């Protein structure tokens, strides 16, 4: 942990660093991609947070997968690959000589060794109750504070609340209707998002009801067989994590389309969004959902 007293000092150092690295000197302009002295995120939510705050993100773990499964905020073109997220490459990190590392609680095991490379900034997304909007917003603000950019976080949060208000107004006719948040449809199962998930909070802010009330994990997800969804036959299904090329086969599946929540008109397929991605992911979901959920059905 960084002491509060030291945090201000660190923030000063970092703002200096950022001034040198900001939009005036874009990371991708350098020929080898060798950026030293930047702030490096270890994990996708941390990368999303940095980018959403308008800061450069010189390197990230699993960049190719990020572009497929997280998508927004978009990674800059010259971003450097750090390796698997479970094992970010320490030798490479060391060679990059970062000014600071943004580390999520899930990487707590690495913290001691990361500290030998650079100061570690914590980025927490979840509280003991799960991943609500309040926790996500507090996490983002705390990170922005540590980076000396408190206003950027406030802007992000304002954008989210604006989008949520717009969605609530547009979807008023659907208020209180049940929706299953399905992240992935497996051959005979679904990965659902439960009451303690970030997307549940988004749904609630939009005035809709999460149809899944069963138990869910720390990350807010649960796995259930298909028939579990028939407990609320009048519900809609919003799919948040399946690539577009699979959509036709889902829409035309003979058994699936006969299950009421998956029926044509009830099944809403959205491009992938990271379900534990914090404020940026909540904003992306809000926008996608507002665009594809028709208020008159």
């Amino acid at each position, binding site marked *: 942990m960084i002491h509060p007293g030291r945090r201000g000092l660190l923030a000063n150092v970092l703002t200096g660093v950022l001034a040198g690295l900001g939009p005036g000197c874009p990371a991708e302009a350098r020929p080898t991609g060798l950026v030293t002295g930047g702030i490096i995120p270890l994990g996708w939510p941390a990368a999303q947070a940095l980018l959403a705050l308008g800061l450069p993100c010189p390197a990230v773990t699993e960049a190719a997968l990020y572009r497929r499964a997280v998508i927004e905020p978009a990674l800059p073109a010259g971003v450097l690959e750090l390796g698997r997220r479970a094992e970010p490459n320490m030798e490479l990190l060391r060679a990059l000589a970062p000014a600071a590392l943004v580390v999520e609680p899930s990487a707590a095991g690495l913290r001691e060794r990361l500290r030998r490379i650079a100061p570690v900034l914590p980025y927490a997304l979840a509280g003991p109750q799960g991943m609500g909007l309040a926790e996500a917003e507090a996490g983002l603000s705390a990170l922005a504070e540590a980076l000396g950019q408190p206003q950027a976080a406030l802007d992000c949060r304002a954008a989210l609340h604006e989008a949520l208000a717009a969605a609530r107004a547009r979807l008023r006719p659907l208020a209180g209707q049940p929706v299953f948040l399905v992240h992935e449809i497996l051959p005979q*199962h679904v990965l659902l998002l439960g009451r303690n998930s970030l997307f549940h909070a988004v749904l609630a802010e939009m005035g809709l009801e999460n149809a899944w009330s069963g138990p869910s994990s720390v990350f807010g997800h649960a796995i259930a*067989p298909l028939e579990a969804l028939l407990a609320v036959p009048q519900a809609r299904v919003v799919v948040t994590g399946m690539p577009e090329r699979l959509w036709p086969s889902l829409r035309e599946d003979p058994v699936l389309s006969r299950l009421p929540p998956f029926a044509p008109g009830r099944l809403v397929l959205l491009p992938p969004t990271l379900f534990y991605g914090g404020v940026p992911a909540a904003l992306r979901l809000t926008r996608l959902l507002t665009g594809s959920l028709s208020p008159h059905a």
Partner: protein
Amino acid sequence: MPEFRLRRPFPVVALLLACALFLTLRQMAALVPPGLWWDLLLRGADLPDPAPGGAPALGPLLLHSLFLPRVAMSLLCGAALAFAGVLLQQVLRNPMAEPATLGVAPGAALALALAAVLAPDLLLPAPLGLGRVPVAFLGGMAALGLVLLLSAARGFAPLAVILAGMVVSLACGAMAALVTLFRHDLLLGLFFWGAGALEQRGWDGVRSLGLWSGAVGLAVLPLRRPLALLALGDEGAQGLGLGVGRLRLLGLGLAVLLSAAVVSQVGVVSFIGLATPALARLLGLRRLGERLFWGALLGGGLLWLTDQLVLLIPQGYRTLPTGAMAGFLGAPLLLVLLPRLPATPPPALSRGDLQPVRHRLLPALGPLLLGTPLLLWLAMAAGQDAAGWHWASGDMLHDLLPWRLPRALAALSAGILMALAGTLTQRLTGNPMAAPEVLGISSGAALGVIVMLFTLPLPSRGGQMLAGAAGAAIVLAVMLGLGRRSGFSPERLILVGIALTALLGTATGLVMASGDPRAVELLNWMSGSTYAMELPDAFFLLLAAVLGLGLLVPLARWLDILPLGEVTALGLGLPLPMVRLCLLLLVAAMTSVAMLVVGPLSFTGLLAPQIAHRLGLGRGWHQALGAAMIGGNITLLADWFGRMLDFPFQIPAGLLVSVLGGPLMIWLMLRRPG
């Protein structure tokens, strides 16, 4: 102890089926009132259209499209797996043979994983792609083809087939694990397929499996009698004028066809294929035809009942696929049955299995010993960063050393320990396919760690070591208890190992299916990564490895005498029970130390002693020392390769040993003179 046998199979099978039927009818009645069943049967899936505005009737749809296909699938899968198991055990004269040990399931899983990454459209349903079933089927058959190719030179001898199956399984499993480590977005789909989820979406799967099972059943019918004669042993059957090789090939092919069909539909359903043939023999069924028929009924009933029991768990908590559940129920069953199982003649070692090709000490050991410092230097100095390759020296080397040395030392020491443990087990059991993993020691240690990981809030490394050692010790106690009764018959020990390994698989599956964030950590650890090593860990490991090597001096004589057989050993005045106890304890200690730090590097324990032997290191301590240096050098090199191959991505050393070691092993086996 008198042999325990239930004479009549009928009451047992009837009871099983009646229980399953009762639970099934209860479930059906909850979906559709019994009065409407006849109506539904006549009209099939054609449901009456719901009245406009009214709620659609869901019960009939659930019953017809989801529940009944699931029931049919559980019965069919159980029956097919049991049938295949009986057939395989007959053909291979080996109670350890089952679909999973022959590489069919891992081969199918690998094909699916590769297809999901390389050509995802191939997996889409029929009009758009090939579908999952044909892809899995091709993978399973390819793996079997490889197994048969490898064992052909030995006339498909039981031991050769099992050994080849194991090598192919481990290599396929490692490659599939590699795919999921890099594409964890696919993990969930592959896991749910892999663990035997019996849920169905419509009748397509049942129809396809039914057709395959019927075809194989019909084909086996005329082969019943010649196959039964295989039990006489190769010489006996040949004496009766049978083409043993060809018949064995045919029987194998049919059994695997059947299991590949099951695997491609529902993934791996553990234990039915292994436990049912054992049960059939316990019920006093002797003739092959009887065992096939009653075995299929028993297997079908067992899986049906298991599945219905799983359905009793409230829906939100029912995260474990039935196939994995069968493992939980089956492993203890097998352990209970084991001591009562009538002894079958163990697969005889063919000449040459433990005799070295040529005897040469220095030409073989010299380069191995010299290689270690060179490899260590390479692992320290050669590396990459964002600018490309570099050869570090001076200050740069000094800066990099804290990051590189712990990993290299840990890999080297763990390799040495696993190879030593492998050599000791192989000498101890006189069985070249014995390795700590085969005997369940590493599974026991891993189970201990898993229990620890998920019961204590903040697991420390010391705690993990203790938990692992406790797990290994419990396994050891079970083995000693069993061993005393059966005179440490290698066959029984290996059966215990298989049961425990299946339990470990089930426990791991439970973690994966729960979606717990610690699952990724576990997956990482199981793949044998040195990433988390710090210098104190590495020195601790090195100390253990040096100690292990030092112990070879007092052990040398035992290691030479043990493989000569019990009679010879007793004749030479060896206190056999004490010797075995000592070696087992040693093996357990070395295995748990090595794998607590770098995961179960199972291939090393299997491979290194074999290579040492092939290099001409025949005497006990020669082989052990050679194997240790081979194992150490291989894992050291694998760790370095793993960090370099796909930089900045890092491939865990344990996985890489399996992926590279598999082909090496296969090459060694292919060039072995017949």
